[in-house]
């Protein structure tokens, strides 16, 4: 039997926040590795780059939002496909 709506909501929250933190932790760790590797391959530039976005028409999607979203879509698809 399927769980109640509230249970589903709670499950989604736990699953979603878990996904977000796991994913971001991994991303931070791997990005750190990549950066140190890249800096060994290439001497870092002297001054920070300051390229400006020009009149962006949209907000920037954050990996975190997308991670959360994925969890939501995933939960839903699991149930809806038969």
């Amino acid at each position: 039997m399927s769980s109640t709506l509230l249970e589903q909501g709670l499950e989604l929250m736990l699953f979603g926040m878990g996904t977000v933190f796991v994913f971001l932790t991994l991303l931070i760790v791997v990005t750190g590795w990549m950066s140190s590797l890249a800096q060994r391959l290439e001497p870092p530039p002297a001054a920070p780059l300051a390229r400006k976005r020009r009149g962006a028409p949209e907000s920037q999607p954050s990996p975190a939002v997308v991670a959360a979203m994925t969890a939501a879509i995933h939960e839903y698809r699991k149930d809806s496909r038969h």
Partner: protein
Amino acid sequence: MENLLRLWQDSGLANMAPGQAVMMGVCLLLLYLAINKGFEPLLLVPIGFGGILANIPAAGLAYSAVENAIWAANPDVLTALASSLGMGDWSLPKEILTAYTQAPAELHRAAIDTAVNAGYANGMLYNFYEVAIGSSVAPLVIFMGVGAMTDFGPLLANPKTLFLGAAAQFGIFATVLGAVGLTALGWMDFSIADAAAIGIIGGADGPTAIYVASLLAPDLLGAIAVAAYSYMALVPLIQPPIVRALTTEAERKIEMVQLRAVGKREKIFFPLLLLVLVALLLPDAAPLLGMFCFGNLMRECGVVDRLSDTAQNALINITTIFLGLSVGSKLSADKFLDLNTLGILLLGVVAFSIGTAAGVLMAKAMNRFSKQAINPLIGSAGVSAVPMAARVSNKMGLEANP
């Protein structure tokens, strides 16, 4: 004289439903906010205008051929539609509409054939919606364009700031709980899929909200998109009191500098790295983040600048126009004006506030464990990378630390 009478009988004014008049007012308000108050005009101008078009009486611009046939309410056509959907002869228009919405692909096509044979056609906005959002292509192209506009330099210099965004996502799931709670109380009627789509408003990320809503809750897409873009625009009103309540002036005075220069190679590797991680861990996010990473790679790789320029300009502009008009098509009175919309707007503001608070508290928590002090204002901006939130945070930082 008789002609003028007929012109009047077929005119929009004579066919105007009260809900349509209300929605025209709402859409004019959106246009006012966009044009005079600068609320995310690139989306809200097309959305507001599309909403007016969707509510033109007797024009049916936002309806499919079958819906237009049903609203025209010709008895012969209704009987034919009911029969092509396998229903009895005396079905009510509302019942036929419901049956059409839920019909499997074969009956769906049969109903469309019946409507087309009887001379009805899809409305303009309905076609725009199907092509731009029904196929998911518009949010995907927007993401590619935004990727081509995004400089990940600051994030690469200090990747830990990604955690601030993570905390802010708490708003998303709190909203999901709120939506299912309202349903459990019997005040609203949201499925779990609806609740998940509503939660994304808390991410303050317009295209993601539209993309998820188009997959999980297309009926709520209008309200969700309007809420997402409105709250993105309302950041300057919603965030400051929350931030002031949760932080000391000393915290708001913390100065952050970009820690180090970021090389070209890192910037090329990052979108590929992000893509591979998404591919391995979150395959459902692959279309959206894939296009985003593709845009960013085009920007940073330096060998396809003509493609990157087009993705940032002509292509994203064209897509934005049709995306906005398509979202507007969901602002037709019969789809927008109900209690659920009110619930969505309320839940959206709650989502936003919780996300802001969680981001600020996360920044404070990180300051306990990290050597590099983080200004909690960045945490409030972390509710999303929305430029407005960043600007507000910046302004409050200047107030604290002039």
